[in-house]
C-alpha cells in the first residue's frame, strides 16, 4: 500500500521499457457510481496509476475543462468524504494505484489526521495538493508519513535551481513536472525550454519524473517522454470521458507503451 505500491507500479512499467501514463479524472463527474467502472477501464487500457481529482469550489490551478467537470461533480453532491467512502467500498477489487488530487481546504475540513487515516483505509497511495508549496507542507507531512502515503511535489518552469533541487529531493512516488506557466488545460504546443527543464529534473530526482499540464495528444506524449519517465493527462481525458468517447483515451494511453510500439 501507499508509497511502495506506487514505486512498484512505476518500476514495472519503466523496466519493461515503457513510459508511465497517469490519467486524471474528476471523481464523480457523471456520478460517483461510475467511478469504479471508470477506474477499471483505465486499468485495462494500461494506465500506470490514476490521478483522481476532487472537486473544489475555487480551483485556482485549473483551466476551464477541469473547472467545469468540478462544477458538474459538485452539483451531483460529490465530496471528498463521499469519494473516500466509495474507494473504501471498492478497495478489494482494485489493483491500480490511486493518487488523489485535491486542494487543501476539503482536506482541512475533514481534519488532516482523520483524512490521512481514511486515505489509508481507502487504499489511497499518494496525494497531489496544488496549493501546498514546500513552505507550508509541514501542516500535513507528519500525518502522511504515519500512513506511508506519498506526497507528490510539483515543480514549475518558474522554479529556480535551488527550489528544483529541494523539490526533487523531497518528492515521493514521483515528481510532477508542470510543463506550462499557467493552469491545466489542452495546449497545442509547449515552450521551447520544456525538454531541458525535464532533463534537468530527471537528473536530480531519484523517483520518476512525470510531465503534466497541457499534455493532450499522442505526439505530446512521445515528445515529452524523450526527456522524462512519463506523463499525466488531465483535461483531454476529462473531456473525452465526459463525452463518452473512449477510443482516443485508449490510444493516448497506448502511446506511452513504447515497448509495444517498437516491437
Amino acid at each position, binding site marked *: 500500500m501507499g508509497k511502495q505500491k506506487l514505486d512498484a507500479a512505476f518500476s514495472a512499467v519503466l523496466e519493461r521499457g515503457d513510459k508511465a501514463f497517469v490519467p486524471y479524472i474528476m471523481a464523480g463527474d457523471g456520478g460517483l457510481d461510475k467511478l469504479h467502472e471508470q477506474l477499471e477501464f483505465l486499468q485495462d487500457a494500461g494506465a500506470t496509476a490514476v490521478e483522481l481529482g476532487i472537486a473544489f469550489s475555487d480551483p485556482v490551478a485549473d483551466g476551464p475543462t477541469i473547472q467545469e467537470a468540478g462544477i458538474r461533480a459538485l452539483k451531483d453532491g460529490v465530496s471528498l468524504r463521499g469519494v473516500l467512502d466509495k474507494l473504501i467500498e471498492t478497495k478489494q477489487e482494485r489493483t491500480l494505484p490511486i493518487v488523489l488530487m485535491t486542494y487543501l481546504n476539503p482536506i482541512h*475540513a475533514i481534519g488532516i489526521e482523520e483524512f490521512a487515516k481514511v486515505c489509508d483505509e481507502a487504499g489511497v497511495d499518494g496525494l497531489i495538493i496544488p*496549493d501546498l508549496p514546500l513552505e507550508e507542507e509541514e501542516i500535513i507531512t507528519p500525518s502522511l508519513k504515519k500512513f506511508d502515503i506519498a506526497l507528490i511535489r510539483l515543480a514549475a518552469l*518558474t522554479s529556480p535551481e535551488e527550489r528544483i533541487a529541494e523539490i526533487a529531493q523531497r518528492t515521493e512516488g514521483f515528481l510532477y513536472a508542470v510543463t506550462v506557466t*499557467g493552469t491545466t488545460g489542452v495546449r497545442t504546443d509547449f515552450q521551447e525550454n520544456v525538454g531541458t527543464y525535464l532533463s534537468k529534473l530527471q537528473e536530480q530526482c531519484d523517483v520518476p519524473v512525470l510531465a503534466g499540464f497541457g499534455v493532450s495528444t499522442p505526439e505530446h506524449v512521445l515528445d515529452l517522454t524523450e526527456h522524462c519517465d512519463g506523463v499525466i493527462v488531465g483535461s483531454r481525458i476529462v473531456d473525452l470521458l465526459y463525452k463518452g468517447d473512449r477510443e482516443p483515451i485508449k490510444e493516448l494511453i497506448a502511446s506511452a507503451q513504447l515497448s509495444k510500439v517498437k516491437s
Partner: protein
Amino acid sequence: MTYQAPDNKGHYGDFGGRFVPETLMPAILELDKEYAKAIQDDDFLAEFDYYLKEYVGRETPLYYAERFSEKLGGPKIYLKREDLNHTGAHKINNALGQALLAVRMGKKKIVAETGAGQHGVATATVCALLGLECIVFMGKEDVRRQKLNVFRMELLGATVESVDQGSGTLKDAVNEALRYWVTNVEDTHYIIGSVVGPHPFPQIVRDFQSMIGTETRKQIQDKERRLPDAVIACIGGGSNSMGMFYPFVNDESVKLYGVEAGGKGVETDKHSVTLQYGKKGVLHGMMSNLLQDKHGQIKEAHSISAGLDYPGVGPEHSYLNDIGRVHYDYITDDEALEALQELSRTEGILPALESSHAIAYAMKLAKQMNKEEVLVVCLSGRGDKDVETVRDALGGNADG
C-alpha cells in the same frame, strides 16, 4: 508585550501563510524580498509620500461630526475622511503603493480583481498615472450591477474582463486574477485589493493602508490631547480596518471594533460574517476564517455592499479575533441603509454602503458611551457609487 505579526513565514498565529501553486511561489518570494528592501529605501518612501500628498490628497481630515454626535447623545464622534481621497475611497493608498513597487520590480503589467469596482478604479487610476498596462477581473454579476464603474475603468485605459465562473462575484474574480497571474507571472504584478491572499500581500496591504491609523492617532491627539476610547471600521477583506487598527494595536486603552456585513441576517444564509460564523480553512492562498460547508466548499457571501461581499477575511483579522485584541461584530443590510440616511441628513456626508456598516455600529455603541468619551469611525469611502443601489433598496422613496 509589543504586537509583532506576521512571523518570517507570513503566519499570524495559526493564520496566513502562502498556499499557492509552485508556479507562483518564486514571484511571491521575490515580492517579499523586494518589498522588504523598498520600505527601507528613503527614495521609495519619499516617492510614495509625494504621490499620497499631491495626487491622492492626503492627509485626509479627521472631522468632528458634531451634529451626528449630539443627535446620538453619546461620545464625541470623529470621522476619518477616507472618502475624500482621489477616486473616493481608501483603496487608492494601497493601489498606489503596490504600483510603485511593481515599477521598482520592473513589471510592466498589472492585474487586479474588483468587486464593486472601487479597487479596480483605484488600480486603473494609478496604472494610468504610471503608464502601466492594466487588466481587471470582475465577476459577471458585479459587472451587471456596477456598469458605470466598468465604464470608468475603461475610460482610464484598463481592460475589464467579466468572469463567468462560479457565482460571478468577487471570490471568482480573485480566482481568475490568480489564474491570470499564474500564466503571466514573468512580467505581471498582481495588485490585490485587500489584506488577503498569500503572504506578503496581507502585510503589504496593511502597511500601505496604515497611514489611516497613523494620521488618526496624531490628529486626535492634536484635537483632544488624548487617544480615542474606541475605533470602529468595517470589514470585507479588511483593508481599511487593518490600516486603521494597526497603529493602535499596542494602545491597550483603545477599544477596536471590526464590523462585518450581516446581510439579510445571520439566521439566513445571506451574510458575510466570517469571524463569528466562518470556519478556519484555506482560500486564495491564505489560512483564515471562511464561510464554507462541512465538506470545505466555499459558500457565497452576501451583503448589500459589494465591497463586503467576500466569504473570507484577512488572516490578521482572524488572528486579532483569536487573541481578543479586536472585538468583531456585524451590521445588517437594513441597519447600514438606515445609518447611510442618518449621516447624510445630519452631516451632509453620504457614506459608502461599506462604511455605513461602521457608522451603524457607531450608532449602537454610542448608546453605551458617555459624553466625555471619544469615538473614531473610519469613513472608508463615499457613497456616490451606491446611490442607485440605495434607491432600489428604499423603493425609490428616501423617506423609506
